[in-house]
Structure formats: structure tokens, C-alpha cells
């Protein structure tokens, strides 16, 4: 792909401000300390909002250019300069990155607003907002960088922010452990990305997008290298986007405050893997093997996530399983090549809206029930929390793919694309849609319908306006975003210069679509029979083997523990033992030896001139001897 990049002009030349604004917010709040407690959260929200306004203006400017000339570059500075490796740090404003910029800053700002209410009583609210701003800045760097190294910096930045925010309530041991787990699992993926970059340096001598993509067609580069690159990038994507086999951290990450789950672990950060795959599309297209693996990973994860979502009683964990599953859809689509890119990104954006809306809705429910997350102690909340219920319901319709709500258009597109390419993948996608309908309906019925099951001393109440207004806005997006993007191929033609998607006729009503809708209806019906019509027991019943399997996250943790954690712990124990007995023993022994020698030699310094003179005399003899020894 030969992209001739035009330097950005006008407002776009200041694209770095997008990153600088929230970064400055994080710096001010963290360095300013307690002095910023009073107004810090407003500042953070304003800066995030400012970034959105800027991003929107840049988007507007971009729309003014003809389609093929919308990609603009902003050169910032020379990042690294060594003998053989030069990396220039720059930003790339194109249709793909601006879509992400708008999503991140828009949803991010809404979640900032929501958090003002949600975190009102937290003593460390200032820090929370600082981390949120840090996250927004890193995420923007991730999507705006024009090279893999810049992306990696953002990648690590969002990882750090995610770690800090999952463990935000670190006084809870579970939160601290979850943060650590997320961090460790992500390292595995990051290692893949890091090695991929090294491989790029070695193969292409550059890590810039234009440089790498321009050389992919080079016949000197073997397909094996491209496959390796693709698989390594996929490993990175799996870590960040909680795809199998690196999915285990996402469910635990729900220990973080709910706005964090909405922003980072549903709407934006976890989709970074999809961004990476779509951005590196050229590499994957050069290696059908890697592409197929991507699609398989996506398909397996979408089923696994959906199955986990069916068995969870914790509302946030059920939603987290759903997130896994929906990202699985996106990865599957991204693995289909240019045909899938538009629907992948489209689903990513609509998912950003409806999932963030539902997470915030879950937060609102928790707010109402004194932070209870167990759905078995909810029930009949629709009358007490009308706004939350209404917005949640719109998100629900969107995710299960009821027309004309957002998810319908994008998910249907993925199913269609998968079906066209590979029947097995298509069947997986359709099955996933049915399961999604089941577990989301289950969640819906358990939370808002049926009998009330909460404790008598809990008095559910609707959340304040600062929390419900973002819900309403997101709900509008959940309802209309899909139609807005997909109808008439609007998004497709917008993204076309980046994704090179061949134009195809899309029919609103297809055989797949009808089958899917029927299966969705079946899923909803089963859920109604099991959880809507019958009373829900307060304690979870025993359940079948499959339920247990799903409750235990498909034994992902058990697998990790037995395969990696236990042997790893043995290794560390061995290393500690070796360090204590071997290294420390050696070092301490040496120190003791030197110290003891010092004490002994020191005694030669008696203070008597006569003994000093004697030592000199003996020394003189030594010198003579040393000279004479040579002669012998």
C-alpha cells in the first residue's frame, strides 16, 4: 500500500493537542495534589470534552477533503536516532484514527461526567480523574501514532491506566489481585507486540506504518515472516482485547469502579486489539494463515464469552463476558480481511455506545442497591429506576440485534461476511447471536422484572441527573448509531480509503438475517421461561456440568494456574532459594570476609613508630627481594 501522506494543515496540524489536553489534566491533578481536590474533576472533564471538540473540528476539516486525500500526517519530533534505526514520532489523522478519536473522546467525556456523580463520595476522586485523563491521553496516542513504537507507548500507557484503575480500590484484596492479574496477562500480549516490532526492525528497518506497509509487497519478504508478524500482533491484540487464550483478566477487572469498566473494559481499551489488527490489515492480508487464526480466535472467543455470560450472577461479570463475546465478533470480522474491516469498526463503535450505556446502567443499579452486584438480589427494578431501565433496555435491544437498533446493523454485517467466507465461522456467529439473546435477556429479567429480592433495608432510588444524562445520551447512540453508520453504506464509503473494502450490495433482509432473528427470539423465549416467568432463587442452584463449566470461566484460570502460575511459582521459589543461599550467601560471606580482614589488618596500625619503621624495613627487604627474584 503506497500512501502518499500530505502534511496536515490548519487545525489538524495541532493534532498533538488532542493528546496534550488530557495529559496535562493528569499531570495537573497528580502533581497539584490536594490543592486540586475541589475542582480537579471538573478540569479533567473539561479537558476531555475539549479534546472531543477539537477532534470533532478536525473531523469536520477532514470531511472537507476529497476521499483519497483525507489521511494527513503531523510530524512531531525525532523519537529515536541511532546508527541504523531512526524513528520519527508523528501522528496520523485518517478516517480510521478519527473514528476512534471521536469514540474515545465522546464516550470518555460522558463517562467523566457520569463519574462526577458516581465517585462523589470517594476520598480519592481527584486521583480517579487523573487516571481517567491519563487513560484518554494514552488511548489517543495509541490510535493517533503513525508508527508501531508510538502505538506501543500508548498501548503501555492504557495498560498502566487500566492497572491503576482496576486496583483503584486497592484496600480490597480482590481489586489488588485483579489489577496484578490484568497487568501480568497483558505483559504476555505486550511481549508479542514488542517482538513483532523487533521483527519489523529486522525485516523492514522501520516501524512506521507507511514504511512497513510499503515494503510488505516486496518479494524479498517471505510469507513466513508475514505469518510470524501477524501471529505476534495477534498475541498482542489477544492480551489487550481479552481474546482466548489471554481472556482471563477481563472478568476480574470488574473489580474496578464501574465507570472504568464502562470506558476501559468495554468501550475503548479492550477494542485496541481490533484497531491493531485492522490497522495492520496489509500484514494480515499478506498471510492467509495468520488471517485465519485471527478469525478462529474471534469465533472461539465470541462463543466462550457468551457461554460465560450465561452463568454469571454478578451483573458486571455477565456484562464482561458479553464484552469478550462482542469483541470476539469484531476480531472475527477483522480476520475476514477488507470485507470485514468496516463492520468490525462499525460494531466496535456501536458496541462502544450500547455497552458503555449498559455498564453505566449497571453502575446506576449498583448505586441504587448499595453496591450489590448479585442479580439474584435485584428484581423488579424497572419501576424504581425508570430512566436506568429505559436506557438499559435500549442497549439491550441493540446488543441482541433487534432491528432497527444499533447492534442489528453491525452484527448482521459480521454474520453475513462470515457466512460468505466460511460456513463454520458463519454458524459460530449465528449461534453466538442466539446465546447473546439468552444471556442478555436473563440479565434483563433478573434485574428489572420479576419479584423484588433485595434486602428490606435497601431502598433503591434513581440516580442523580449527572449520572442519568450520560445514560440517555448513550442510549440515543445505542438506538440510532447503527442505522446512521450502516444504512446506505455511509461508514463504508467513509472508511474505504483505509480499509479498501470492495463495494458490495447489502440487503437488509437476508436468509441469514431471518434465521438469526428467529434464533434470537428463541433465546429470549428460553430466558423468559427460565428467569422471567419463574421466580429466581436467591441462591444459585447447583446447575448442570455446562453451567459449572461456564461459572468457572471455562476453567481458564485453572488452566493458567496449573500450566503457568504453579510452575512459575516453583521457579521463583527456586530462584529465591538460590538467591538467599547462593548469591546472598556468597555476597554476605564475601562482605564478612573483607570486613574481618579489615578488622585484622587494622590491628597492624598500632600507633607505635617502631612497628611502623619495622614494616617499612620489611617492605624494603620485600622490594629488594622482588627485584632479585626477576634475575633468578
Amino acid at each position, binding site marked *: 500500500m503506497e500512501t502518499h501522506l500530505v502534511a496536515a494543515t490548519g487545525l489538524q496540524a495541532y493534532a498533538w493537542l488532542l493528546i496534550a489536553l488530557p495529559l496535562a489534566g493528569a499531570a495537573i491533578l497528580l502533581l497539584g495534589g490536594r490543592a486540586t481536590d475541589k475542582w480537579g474533576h471538573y478540569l479533567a472533564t473539561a479537558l476531555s470534552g475539549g479534546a472531543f471538540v477539537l477532534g470533532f473540528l478536525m473531523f469536520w476539516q477532514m470531511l472537507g477533503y476529497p476521499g483519497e486525500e483525507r489521511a494527513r500526517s503531523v510530524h512531531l519530533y525525532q523519537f529515536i536516532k541511532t546508527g541504523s534505526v531512526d524513528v520519527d514520532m508523528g501522528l496520523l489523522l485518517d478516517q480510521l484514527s478519527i473514528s476512534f478519536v471521536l469514540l474515545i473522546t465522546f464516550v470518555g467525556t460522558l463517562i467523566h461526567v457520569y463519574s462526577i456523580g458516581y465517585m462523589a463520595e470517594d476520598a480519592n476522586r481527584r486521583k480517579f480523574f487523573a487516571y481517567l485523563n491519563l487513560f484518554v491521553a494514552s488511548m489517543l496516542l495509541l490510535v493517533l501514532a503513525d508508527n508501531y513504537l508510538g502505538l506501543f507507548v500508548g498501548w503501555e500507557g492504557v495498560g498502566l491506566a487500566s492497572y491503576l484503575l482496576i486496583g483503584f480500590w486497592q484496600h480490597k484484596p480482590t481489586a489488588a489481585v485483579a489489577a496484578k492479574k490484568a497487568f501480568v496477562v497483558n505483559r504476555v500480549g505486550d511481549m508479542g507486540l514488542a517482538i513483532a516490532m523487533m521483527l519489523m526492525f529486522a525485516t523492514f528497518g522501520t516501524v512506521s506504518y507507511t514504511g512497513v506497509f510499503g515494503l510488505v509487497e516486496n518479494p524479498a519478504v517471505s510469507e513466513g515472516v508475514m505469518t510470524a508478524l501477524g501471529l505476534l500482533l495477534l498475541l498482542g491484540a489477544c492480551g489487550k482485547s481479552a481474546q482466548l487464550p489471554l481472556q482471563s483478566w477481563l472478568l476480574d477487572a470488574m473489580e474496578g469502579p464501574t465507570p472504568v469498566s464502562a470506558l476501559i473494559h468495554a468501550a475503548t481499551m479492550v477494542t485496541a486489539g481490533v484497531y491493531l489488527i485492522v490497522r495492520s490489515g496489509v500484514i494480515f492480508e499478506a498471510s492467509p494463515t495468520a488471517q485465519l487464526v485471527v478469525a478462529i480466535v474471534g469465533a472461539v472467543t465470541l462463543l466462550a464469552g457468551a457461554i460465560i455470560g450465561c452463568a454469571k450472577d454478578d451483573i458486571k461479570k455477565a456484562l464482561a463476558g458479553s464484552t469478550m463475546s462482542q469483541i470476539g465478533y469484531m476480531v472475527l470480522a477483522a480476520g475476514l480481511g477488507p470485507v470485514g474491516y468496516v463492520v468490525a469498526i462499525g460494531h466496535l463503535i456501536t458496541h462502544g455506545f450500547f455497552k458503555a450505556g449498559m455498564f453505566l446502567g449497571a453502575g446506576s443499579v449498583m448505586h441504587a442497591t448499595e453496591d450489590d452486584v448479585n442479580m439474584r438480589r435485584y428484581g423488579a427494578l424497572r419501576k424504581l429506576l425508570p430512566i436506568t431501565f429505559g436506557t438499559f433496555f435500549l442497549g439491550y435491544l441493540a446488543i441482541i440485534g433487534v432491528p432497527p437498533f444499533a447492534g442489528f446493523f453491525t452484527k448482521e454485517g459480521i454474520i453475513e461476511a462470515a457466512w460468505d467466507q466460511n460456513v463454520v465461522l458463519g454458524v459460530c456467529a449465528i449461534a453466538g447471536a442466539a446465546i447473546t439473546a439468552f444471556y442478555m435477556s436473563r440479565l434483563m429479567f433478573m434485574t428489572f422484572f420479576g419479584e423484588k429480592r433485595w434486602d428490606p433495608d435497601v431502598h433503591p432510588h434513581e440516580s442523580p441527573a449527572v449520572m442519568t444524562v450520560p445514560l440517555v445520551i448513550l442510549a440515543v447512540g445505542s438506538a440510532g448509531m447503527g442505522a446512521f453508520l450502516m444504512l446506505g453504506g455511509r461508514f463504508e464509503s467513509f472508511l474505504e480509503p483505509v480499509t479498501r473494502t470492495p463495494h458490495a450490495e447489502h440487503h437488509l433482509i437476508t436468509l441469514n438475517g431471518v434465521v438469526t432473528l428467529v434464533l434470537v427470539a428463541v433465546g429470549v423465549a428460553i430466558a423468559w421461561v427460565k428467569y422471567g416467568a419463574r421466580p429466581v432463587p436467591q441462591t444459585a442452584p447447583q446447575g448442570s456440568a455446562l453451567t459449572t463449566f461456564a461459572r468457572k470461566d471455562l476453567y481458564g484460570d485453572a488452566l493458567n494456574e496449573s500450566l503457568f502460575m504453579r510452575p512459575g511459582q516453583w521457579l521463583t521459589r527456586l530462584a529465591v532459594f538460590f538467591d538467599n543461599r547462593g548469591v546472598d550467601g556468597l555476597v554476605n560471606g564475601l562482605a564478612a570476609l573483607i570486613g574481618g580482614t579489615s578488622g585484622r589488618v587494622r590491628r597492624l596500625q598500632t*600507633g607505635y*613508630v617502631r612497628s*611502623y619503621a619495622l614494616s*617499612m624495613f620489611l617492605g624494603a627487604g620485600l622490594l629488594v627481594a*622482588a627485584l632479585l627474584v626477576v634475575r633468578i
Partner: protein
Amino acid sequence: MTASVLAAGNIPAPHVEYDLVAPLLLVFGTAVLGVLVEALFGRRWRPRIQVPLAFAGLGAAFVWTVILAVNADPHQVAAEGALGIDGPTLFIQGTILVLAMLSMLLIADRRQDTFAAQAAALPGTDAEARALAGGSEHTEIYPLTLFAVGGMLMFPASNDLLTMFVALEVMSLPLYLLCGLARRRRLLSQEAAVKYFLLGAFSSAFFLFGIALLYGYSGSMSLGDIAQVVQTGQTIVPEEVVGRVQPQEATEALLYGGVALLAVGLLFKMGAVPFHSWKPDVYQGAPTPVTALMASGTLVSAVGALLRVFYVALENMRWDWRPMMWAVAIITMVVGSIVAITQTDIKRMLAYSSVAHAGFLLTGVIATSENGLSSVLFYLAAYGATTIGAFAVVTMVRDTSGEAGHLSRWAGLGKRSPAVAGIFAFFLLAFAGIPLTSGFTGKFAVFRAAFEGGAAPLVVVGVLSSAIAAFFYVRVIVLMFFSDPEPEGPSVVVAPATAAAVALGLAATVVLGVLPQPLLDLAGQAAGQLFVR
């Protein structure tokens, strides 16, 4: 034949190149003037004249040295072959003069009360109390210091062994005296003076005996002649008797004995093991400004003389003396570093540190190459400046009984006076050879020279010793910054002259660490000329 006839006829007047020896003459002349000031001026006036006079003398000598080095660039013997004036010598002399001026700042800082009011008064007697009350002071220290500095300048310039011996004594005698002049802990100070004197005399005897043996070996005192004899194996025949006396086979036993004994005298002044035992006692007892002068100037001078003897007279037998110097260098580095660990007095610790550094310097001497020479020259300048800075800080940390010598008194100094403690920590890091300090550049240079000279094992020992040495330097830093201060710990007394010395020492340590190239180039240029024969 009367004496007058002899004087007028047979003995020609010696020819002296006054321009080349002017720095020496300036320093000695100022010293003599200082003595006259002592005789002619009243007590109130003496300090006011002595201090500027001393600085003027040292400054003029330094300027002259620089002019000589830049304009004349001499490479010749002067004063009938008694002195060799060449690149390395001028570098060493310039270094000594700068260090002497820095030390003079400490000596002249009269606010610090370092020197005894009346040295002749017995400690603890009424006479002493009266002298203290009367505010009397010994302004003789200035001419004495200048004589010592003159000796230091002459010692490495001496081109024949007899001159070298005279220079050694001129340098040492005033120092013996100055060591005994401390105002506080006078018994310790006097004990140090006596020890230094006795051991110095002992080492001088070795030195003199070594000269005698070498004369017996070669038939000459001149370093150049000795080098020639070492090469040819034939003794030198004096000019007057050429033709009448035939050259003879030189006796090698005399040579080895002579070299060993000469080395004893030189290594003693350097403080190499096993001739180091005076160092901790004397450094501790002497007034700290004098310690600073000895630790910098005397060391530079002694190493300079050692370089000249071993590079000029004995270069051709370097395969013979290298094992001896290897042994000395190794035990010096190791013993200096190890024994320093258990020291509890800051000055004694610095003394052992100085012993270890003498060992590091010896590795450069052993290289016997142009690189070795230039690296040693750089090391001397860098180390000298840092040392004076460090001792200057020692004079600043005081309590009611004078300087706070015991290390435990330094605990928590970083909390009380972060700036002073920070600067001292920086000096210690420089001694330890941490990068971005002059200590690192110097150590790196000598080790590289030694490595190139085929002394890799020596470098390994040097690096290991540095690691051990780093321990006790860092221990002091930890003590200063991570221990709680004592309730009645010492306070930091800042006097302008001392502060100036600290600042200059710090500046040199930083600049030579960050931007060493100019001085390295200068040292390389000086060494490129090698010693004159």
C-alpha cells in the same frame, strides 16, 4: 693555592637558565620575603601582608609556568643538569601550584581556628591559655608552606638524585613542623608531627642509601647517565678524567639494591603499602588544611618524582622493576580499600582512601607508556582537587571541640545541612569513581593505560578494590542522609575562603567528570613530550 684563586680560576660560575627555573625561584623568593616580614613587621600587620604575599607568589609562579608551557615549550635540562624542565614537569608543577593555592585558601581562613596560637606552649598549660587569650597566631605557617611548596615543585623536576634528595628534604621539613601546629587535640597533632618526622627521616635514609648504591653502580648522579649505564652496562667516566680512567663493568647488585631503596623513599612519600603507616596517623593529627596540602600537593609531587626516576633513569630495565611495582600496587590498592572499611574517623578514612588511590596511580605508572604518563597526570590533577574539596568540607563540620572527626557525628548531616552533605557525597562518589565525576575519568584513564600496557590482572585487582572502596564511601553517604541526626550533633560553619575552596574543588570535580577532554588533551600533550634526559 688559596681559596680565592680557586674560586676565580678553576671553577666556572654555574650557568643557570633563570627563565626556566623562575617558578621555583618565585616561590622560594616569596618564602624568604615571608621570613623577612616575620622579622620586620608587628604582629597586627603580619597576617595582612603574609596572606596576599603568599597568594601573589604562588599566583605569579603559576602564571610563569603557564607562559613557559605555552610560549617556550621547553624540553631541556637547566641549572647545570640539576633540573629537567619539560612538558610533564610543567604540568605537574602547574597542578601543584593550583592545589597549593586551594590549600592556601584553607590555611589562610583565619575564622576556622585551625592552627595553634603558640606552638611552643605546652598543651594544657597557663602559657597556652595566655596565648589563646592574647590572640597570638603563627604567621610563620605561610613561609613554611611556601618552602614546602617550593620543595614540591623541585622534587619532580630534579634531574639528578642529589637535587632530588635536597628537594625531598625541603619539601618535608616544613611539613613536619606544620603537622604539629593544630589548635585542638594538640597532643595528637604533635604526636603526628614526631611520627612523620621520625619515619620521614627513616625513609630519607633509605633514599640516600639508594642514591649511594646507584652512584656506585653508575658513577653518576644524573638520571640520564644512569639510564645510559643501564643500557650499556659500562660505568660513566667523569669528564675530568676521560682517557685516564677506563669505563668498567657496572655491578648489577648495586643497581638492584639502589633501585629498591630509592623506591622505598619515593613510595613512602606517596604512601604506598607497606610504607603507608604514617598516613592515617599524620592525616588525622595534622591541622586539616595541612592534611589537604599533603594529600594533594605532596602526593602529586611524589608521584611526579617517581615517574621521572622510573621513566627516565630506569626505563630500560622496566622488565626488572615491574614485578616489584606490581606487587606494591596490588597490596596498596587492596590494603587501602580493605582497611578503610573499618575506620571510624573521617580523616583516617580519607587517609586510607588516599592509600588506595596511590595504588590506582601506580597502575598508571607501571604502564610505562605515553598513555600511562598522561593518564597519571590527569588523575593527579583530578584527584588533588577533589581531595582538597573533601578536606575543606571536613574543616566545616564542627562542634564545640573543633572538627567533628568521628564518623558517628556525621550521622544525619544531610538533614541538617543538605547542601554541604550533598557536596561531600559528590566528592565521595568521585573518589569511588562514579561516572560523570572526575574520579571516573581518571580511574578509567589509568586502568586503560595499564590494560594496554599488558597489566590486565592489575586492572582486575584495581576494579575489585574500587568496588570494595565504593562500599565505605557510600556508607558515609548513607550515614549522612539516611540516619537520624544526633541531638547535639556538629553544625556546619561556613567561612568564605573555605567555601571558595569547596566550590572550586566541586567545580573541578564536575567539569573534569562531564567535560574532561580539554584537560585530557593537555595531559596528553604534556606526556607526548616525555621527560627530558
